[in-house]
């Protein structure tokens, strides 16, 4: 007598029919199974492609079968005609939940960092700017605690942009650099007349951008120089920052 009411597969009761039910009720169960199957799988008009999760390539010959290759954390799809030998094509390159693989996608690693406190720029010393606050760091390639640098996860072309604003009035000549592996790669210099207050700059902003060809493991940092210091740079989040991302 136990005949459930179900619209989809999850509504079926696996213990029905019970052993004591009459045989004449069997056709009711068969109709229920057909109804639930058709409602749950409405578009299946051919051999169904499936999602297979394992470390070795499945032997399926159905076009469109998706294989999550657990040995490489990659998603692959069979593009061969059904019945032919499978042709597994990677979707993109990696699965987005795999950090290293995700970084291989252009635009998938990017960061922006600001300063939590004012940094003083000493007299005539190239000084690394300590951007210690991450606004975002997709891919976790920016070090905001120790070396204040972005390290390339894979070979590629990367774009960087840095800005620095002074919080104290000064009239010195200043430089702003983006460094690659410890040497200046892109530089901006600002020369100020120091012999008269008319030319003394107050709270100037400097900005430098570049595209850098990097191999995995190379790093980018920001350095600044002032000819007459010390003076304090602003830690305003819209005026003093370091950001970058992978172009290709």
């Amino acid at each position, binding site marked *: 007598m136990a005949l459930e009411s179900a619209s989809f597969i999850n509504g079926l009761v696996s213990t029905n029919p019970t052993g004591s039910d009459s045989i004449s009720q069997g056709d009711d169960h068969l109709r229920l199974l057909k109804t639930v199957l058709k409602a749950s799988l409405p578009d299946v008009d051919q051999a169904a492609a499936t999602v297979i999760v394992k470390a070795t390539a499945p032997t399926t010959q159905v076009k469109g079968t998706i294989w999550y290759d657990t040995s490489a954390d990659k998603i692959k799809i069979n593009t061969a005609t059904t019945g032919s030998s499978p042709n597994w094509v990677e979707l993109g390159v990696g699965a987005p939940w795999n950090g290293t693989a995700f970084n291989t996608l252009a635009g998938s690693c990017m960061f922006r960092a600001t300063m939590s406190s004012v940094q003083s720029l000493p007299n005539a*010393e190239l000084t690394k700017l300590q951007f210690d606050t991450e606004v975002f760091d997709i891919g976790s390639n920016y070090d905001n605690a120790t070396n204040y640098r972005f390290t390339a996860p894979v070979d590629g072309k990367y774009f960087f942009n840095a800005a620095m604003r002074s919080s104290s009035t000064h009239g010195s000549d200043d430089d702003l650099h983006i460094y690659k592996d410890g040497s200046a790669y892109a530089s901006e210099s600002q020369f100020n007349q120091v012999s008269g207050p008319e030319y003394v700059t107050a709270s100037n902003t400097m900005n430098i951008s570049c595209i850098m060809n990097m191999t995995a493991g190379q790093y980018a940092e920001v350095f600044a120089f002032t000819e007459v210091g010390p003076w304090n740079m602003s830690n305003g989040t819209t005026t003093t920052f370091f950001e970058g991302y992978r172009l290709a």
Partner: protein
Amino acid sequence: MASMSYQIRAYVGRDINFRSDVILQDDGQGAYIKEWNIPEAQPTVEQLAGYDAQADAIVAEEKVIADRIAGYGGYGDQLDMMYWDEVNGTTTWKDHIAAVKAANPKV
């Protein structure tokens, strides 16, 4: 203690171009000499520490100059003072400059 750039100026006894002659860098652990491109022998940190008093004197001299420049005021204001001194036969500008010099004596 004066910064390393002033110690080096005291050590060589002249002005230095810190973009080309000597390049100092601080990676976050304190300044060091990255490049030394002048004839004088490159000093050690300990040697430079011995020039700290002279370096402090340079800092003090530069502060006097900076304070005087700030005290003199803008060129426009000074020219205005000179003009009215000419018109009125006064010494406002000369007195002003003398007062700034007196307030910021050279060390």
